[in-house]
């Protein structure tokens, strides 16, 4: 195939604007070759270069005494003591998952797993955040089934348990679903591998699957809006092979036991191009590659295609000179290709040859880290002020709390996720202490008493109403979920999913969200150690709600002190930690019952939140509670109902008695005031808990007793609900199957 002539128009078709074209011509001092244009287009795509987000992301706190590796590498690493560290990151695979849900979601899991094991960590837990359109949208059931099966099949096959996550439905995702995949791995703190191509003369190995034509320009696709022509982009979605990834994982970890590796990096978005440029860029070195040595599974591939292929399950390894044989021995054992395709140089340039002819000759640094940086204009979205106003007095108050509760428990955003998580292997590797359905997942670290807690959270509705506060609430909720197990929140990773950054209102939402995350993480002392930005989640000009998914990781020093989320013993006291003001604005209740998404998110007092997080850890440590459960979407009554429905059966109910003290019923029962937790404890522990709460300036209120068989609610002595657990469970479990069976 003849290569097309490189012109500004061709560059434009590659997503490079006139300024960028001029910039790249200046860098080269000439017009680029066709492969060079391809390299520029992917390296300077939004997806790879973070050109619209970079100046904002600088606001994140990224360091701390426990941070061994912050952003900028394949994944972040945090010290958990005794010589151990955890490596984690979250990444989006939104665009491919909408176009081809099964493969899109599967390769999202594959990619994030590679990001983690390339650092030298063995992946021990996966989580995922899924955001779908309204259940009645004709595509939704098909997308759910494909995404869940894709995530399951990949993680299950490779043998990494999926232990938690989040599923959220909203019409704003009708044309742009979100698939955010999180992986956490375990490694020795002094054995971190990084993506450095250093040491002149060191061999550059290509290992793993062969290269095909799949996924060419996937990164570029993820850097543009969808339109009606998107269906034609199906070939840009990669195809996953978890079996090969399992072999690659074992081979890489085995090789890491030998003293053979200088640097290693996944060939993810933009494939061989980004891995080679980024590795050389970090080391300040140069790299020479003989492209025709790359193992290919198709004939007639061009240099352009080999450079830009996003075929999965491939890695680039810079080995120590002389260690070639050990690399080959390990990969041969696992029946994978391991081929020397080049070497490290000191020229500061990427020189790429094809059958002896130099087809690329570019300086590394300007391409890898001097991509254009944009401070894109921002403007508050029109109509936001009106959206934030809600005349609550004009709304009729809840008249039948029992009916409202049952309706909420069966609703798409609150019903049981059992249909989803039973398709994921949750227990392989025998570490899962608390799996899906708990406030946070808890995975023990073998050979120690420690366990790691993880939770993914964001409420896009809050973020839509106030992106700054919404982002802060996401961090707070994730930390609270982690602390509900007794663990101490340590650090976060994030997936920032937004619309088109070239629209001022989207950029405003993005900037405010980043500021919110940054301030919350600073105040809670949980730095951002890794993450990912996904823009252009728009179809025909309709963007998604701002969705900054937060992945919080915490440490429980003694797994024996863990606390679970459900009522344990009949006769226990039920207490509410935190203050109820009755904030119904922006809530699930308001959306579901009144069809309104207005008002402000619940106010968050971070000092109070921090005090609560401390209290939860003390209650666990002192063994004062039998259960702790975060109170968030759906409010107090939903939180109590959730405490009744245990993942392993043996449901216990509660008799709850509340004082309205002038509050509206909807606010009291379903308001979403922040920084609240429902706990259960023996009556002997109660006073101690109240004292500890008071010492921290926190409210703690007895609200009832754990009983068998029913959930009963009184407000000011008046019966509001009396539901059998059987009915409650039927509603809650019936929600999801009914929504996926709709065709």
């Amino acid at each position: 195939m003849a290569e097309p002539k490189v012109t500004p128009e061709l560059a434009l078709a590659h997503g490079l604007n006139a300024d960028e074209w001029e910039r790249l011509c200046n860098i080269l001092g000439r017009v680029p070759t066709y492969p060079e244009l391809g390299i520029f287009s992917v390296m300077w795509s939004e997806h790879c270069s973070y050109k619209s987000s970079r100046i904002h992301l600088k606001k994140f706190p990224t360091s701390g005494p426990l941070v061994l590796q912050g952003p900028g590498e394949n994944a972040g690493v945090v010290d958990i003591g005794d010589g151990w560290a955890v490596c984690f990151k979250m990444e989006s695979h939104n665009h491919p998952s909408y176009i081809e849900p099964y493969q899109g979601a599967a390769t999202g899991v594959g990619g994030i797993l590679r990001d983690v094991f390339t650092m030298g960590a063995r992946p021990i837990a996966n989580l995922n955040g899924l955001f779908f359109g309204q259940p009645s949208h004709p595509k939704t059931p098909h997308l759910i089934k494909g995404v869940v099966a894709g995530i399951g099949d990949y993680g299950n096959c490779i043998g990494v348990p999926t232990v938690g996550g989040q599923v959220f439905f909203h019409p704003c995702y009708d044309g742009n679903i979100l698939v955010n995949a999180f992986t956490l791995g375990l490694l020795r703190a002094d054995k971190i591998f990084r993506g450095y191509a250093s040491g002149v003369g060191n061999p550059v190995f290509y290992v793993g699957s062969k290269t095909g034509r799949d996924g060419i320009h996937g990164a570029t696709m993820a850097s543009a809006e969808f339109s009606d022509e998107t269906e034609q982009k199906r070939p840009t979605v990669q195809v996953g092979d978890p079996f090969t990834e399992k072999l690659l994982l074992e081979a890489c970890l085995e090789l890491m036991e030998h003293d053979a590796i200088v640097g290693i990096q996944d060939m993810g978005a933009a494939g061989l191009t980004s891995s080679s440029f980024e590795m050389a860029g970090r080391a300040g070195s140069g790299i020479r590659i003989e492209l025709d040595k790359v193992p290919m599974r198709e004939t007639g591939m061009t240099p352009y295609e080999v450079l830009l292929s996003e075929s999965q399950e491939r890695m680039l390894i810079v080995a120590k000179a002389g260690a070639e044989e050990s690399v080959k021995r390990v990969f041969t054992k696992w029946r994978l290709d391991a081929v020397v395709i080049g070497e490290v140089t000191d020229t500061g340039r990427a020189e790429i040859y094809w059958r002896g002819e130099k087809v690329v000759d570019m300086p590394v640094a300007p391409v890898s880290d001097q991509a254009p940086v944009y401070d894109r204009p921002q403007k508050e979205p029109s109509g936001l002020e009106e959206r934030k106003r809600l005349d609550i007095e004009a709304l009729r108050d809840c008249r039948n709390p029992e009916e409202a509760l049952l309706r909420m428990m069966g609703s798409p955003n609150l019903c049981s996720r059992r249909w989803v998580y039973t398709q994921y292997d949750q227990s392989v590797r025998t570490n899962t202490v608390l799996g899906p359905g708990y406030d946070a997942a808890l995975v023990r670290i073998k050979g120690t008493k420690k366990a790691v807690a993880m939770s993914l959270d964001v409420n896009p509705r809050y973020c839509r109403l106030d992106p700054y506060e919404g982002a802060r609430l996401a961090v707070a909720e994730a930390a609270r979920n982690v602390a509900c197990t007794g663990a101490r929140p340590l650090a976060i990773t994030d997936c920032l999913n937004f619309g088109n950054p070239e629209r001022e209102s989207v950029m405003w939402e993005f900037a405010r969200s980043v500021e919110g995350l940054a301030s919350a993480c600073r105040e809670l002392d949980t730095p951002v150690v890794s993450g990912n930005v996904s823009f252009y989640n728009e179809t025909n000009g309709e963007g998604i709600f701002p969705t900054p998914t937060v992945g919080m990781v915490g440490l429980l020093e003694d797994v024996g002190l863990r606390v679970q989320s459900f009522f344990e013993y009949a006769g226990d006291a039920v207490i509410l930690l935190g203050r109820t003001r009755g904030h119904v604005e922006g809530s699930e209740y308001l959306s579901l019952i009144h069809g309104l998404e207005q008002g402000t998110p619940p106010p968050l007092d971070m000092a109070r939140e921090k005090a609560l997080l401390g209290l939860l850890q003390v209650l666990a440590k002192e063994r004062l509670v039998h259960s702790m459960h975060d109170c968030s979407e759906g409010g107090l009554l939903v939180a109590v109902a959730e405490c009744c429905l245990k993942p392993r059966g043996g449901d216990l109910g509660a008799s709850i008695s509340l004082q309205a003290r002038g509050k509206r019923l909807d606010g009291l029962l379903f308001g979403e005031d922040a920084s609240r937790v429902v706990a259960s404890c023996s009556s002997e522990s109660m006073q101690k808990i109240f004292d500890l709460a008071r010492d921290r300036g926190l409210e703690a209120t007895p609200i009832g007793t754990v009983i068998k068989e029913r959930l009963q609610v009184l407000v000011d002595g008046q019966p509001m609900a009396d539901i059998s657990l059987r009915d409650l469970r039927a509603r809650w479990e019936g929600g999801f199957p009914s929504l996926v069976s709709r065709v």
Partner: protein
Amino acid sequence: MKISVIEFPGSNCDHDAYEWPLRMFGKAPERVWYADRDLKRADLVIIPGGFSYGDYLRCGAMAARSPVMEEVVAHAKRGGYVIGICNGFQILCESGLLPGALLKNRTLTFLCLEVVLRCETTNAPFTASLRKGDLLRMPIAHGDGNYYCDEKTLRGLLDEERVAFRYVSPEGRVADEWNFNGSMDAIAGILSENRRVLGMMPHPERASEALLGSTDGAAILRSAAKAIDKNGKVEQNG
């Protein structure tokens, strides 16, 4: 008792199977790579779960034809003990050591959840220390666990009391809604004719520690160890 754990490319419960006896008896088993033929003088061979060869072609089909399986078949014929768990059960069926096949779950999806098993016979080394009707809780995690065999085979299994475990309700009764994968006659695990080869879809090695929610799986390995020590070492080849 000596235990060996086989590792195929794509096995992913091999670590769990390895740690199972290690945690219970404090003694590490041997690891055997699929391309090798040396079972390392094992009395009991564990074929762990996972996705050997990525489940390509048919679950367990390629692993059943690997060099090490010829040795496992010979070991079984000499009266050696074998447990195949999940993918290990599929491999045992594919290699002909156990009858029948594991079809796709009737939900057509992967299923990972805790099930209740009822012990159906104590006439086997793996269940000798249990009581008939004992209920054991442990997880399943498979896409193809729907046991199937022809009528004649089923009759044989029933007549010879070779069904080791059935899926039951928490109260211990066989019921369609508790037979999640749709297995014929709610069969969760079966024995070979000489009762020394056990294949089962549920994962006892994941249910042998209170921290993980159940210790019921430990009973199976403990029973096997007791029986093997009592019956004497397995005769070795060469």
